């Protein structure tokens, strides 16, 4: 039996591009036939998977990783540029009313919002996360492995569905010992498909508003940016936001309540 063809010649056979001599050899050689079969399998695997679009994460994800790890010793710290960029985005938060969020300001707001968001499951996932400071507002995580909120309820709002005015849970502003405030939502607002729910605080003229982030379940604890006066933005609003990447309010509110001072 002549010597085995080179690997590349066997790959060529799998691609339908081999020489007749090699094909004859492979017919009579189980070792080489297994090799060709392996190449055919690899090709079938690639073809069978179909073309898949790989989607790179936006730049803010790397920034958020750096921010989060900057709390650890001896790890990649947030560069000064990263921090100042996030801080620079802060002023756009208060001014962004419905429809005004276009261009760079809106993108910055979204980046700032995303950068300091922490996934709720991170509590269970990383016990070490307790007290980690995220983002430029000095926002800290609530609790550690056992999420629990310590503080004083300073305002409450019964929530109602806008469609039929039916009770839909409650919203509370809890002030923690360090003075920071958290909006705690407990609602039975139904989740939505092909869209998501987002929580907003809106002023009484329904012009100024701030997003506190998406609502991914019946219970949410959403940080209110430091220095933000809830009394001026007392309307708690839950909206249905299409998955279109537009950071402004969709105008499609489903649940609302008005915060009143806790007696």
């Amino acid at each position, binding site marked *: 039996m002549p010597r085995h063809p080179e*690997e*590349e010649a066997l*790959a*060529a056979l*799998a*691609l339908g*591009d081999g020489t007749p001599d090699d094909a004859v050899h492979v017919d009579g050689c189980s070792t080489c036939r297994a090799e060709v079969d*392996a*190449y055919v*399998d*690899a*090709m079938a*695997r*690639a*073809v069978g*998977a*179909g*073309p*898949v*679009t*790989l*989607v*790179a*994460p*936006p730049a*803010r*994800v*790397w920034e*958020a*990783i750096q921010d*989060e*790890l900057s709390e*650890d010793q*001896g*790890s*990649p710290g947030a560069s000064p540029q990263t921090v100042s960029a996030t801080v620079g985005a802060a002023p756009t938060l208060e001014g962004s009313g419905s429809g005004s969020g276009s261009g760079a300001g809106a993108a910055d707001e979204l980046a700032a919002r*995303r950068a300091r*968001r*922490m*996934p*709720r*499951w*991170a509590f*269970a*996932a*990383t016990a*070490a996360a307790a007290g980690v400071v995220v983002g430029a507002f000095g926002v800290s995580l609530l609790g550690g492995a056992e999420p629990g909120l310590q503080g004083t309820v300073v305002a409450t709002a019964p929530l109602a569905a806008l469609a039929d005015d039916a009770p839909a849970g409650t919203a509370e502003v809890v002030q923690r010992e360090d003075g920071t405030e958290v909006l705690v939502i407990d609602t*039975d*607002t*139904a*989740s939505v498909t092909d869209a*998501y729910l987002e929580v907003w605080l809106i002023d009484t003229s329904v012009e100024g508003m701030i997003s506190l982030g*998406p609502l*991914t*379940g*019946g*219970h949410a604890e959403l940080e209110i940016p430091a220095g933000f006066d809830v009394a001026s933005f007392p309307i708690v609003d839950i909206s249905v936001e299409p*998955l279109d*990447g537009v950071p402004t309010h969709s105008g499609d509110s489903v649940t609302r309540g008005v915060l009143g001072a806790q007696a």
Partner: protein
Amino acid sequence: MSLAVRLDTDGGEPMVADLAVDPAPDPRELARRFSAGDDTALEELYRDVSALIHTLALRALRNAADAEDVTQATFVSAWRGRDGFDPDRGDLRGWIVGIAKRRIADALDARSRESRRLAAVKDVAEPAVSDREADAVEIAYDIEALGDPRRTIVSLAFYEGATHQQISERLDMPLGTVKSHLRRSLMTLRERWEVNDAQAS
């Protein structure tokens, strides 16, 4: 940006391609530096596999914000848990993909727990990343990692059904060169997947 679409972009390279165009760092060298706590290794790893991980998360969670959270949590966990990675025993990419799959499972668990609290929620269909889907994403990554012109040639041959002659004409490349690139690509892919399968079993 799909493989097929990228073929039409001669001028402005899309962001995905920018990431993928970076030559993949030598895996063993990168794994060693990562394990030793060299923080530039984390950035290189991120440039290499963040699109792979983000895509896995996107396809499993079908929510951009959640996918970003998972991607973030994966790299944070990987860096904090780098002591648990042995560069002599496993490959770094397989290891971090394993972390990503656990983070995705965590996210789905959290979602279903929250969903159960909502009495009003009906027929909560839990999306999950199937092994088949995860495979497809990793295969796409491996084809990307072939670099140009091989990834272009492979996607034309495998996904557009172009003949070798058609590829030669379309890319203005000698037929023999097209065939050679295809052979070498197939050899690379087979080797990569045999390594993966050996580690998975």
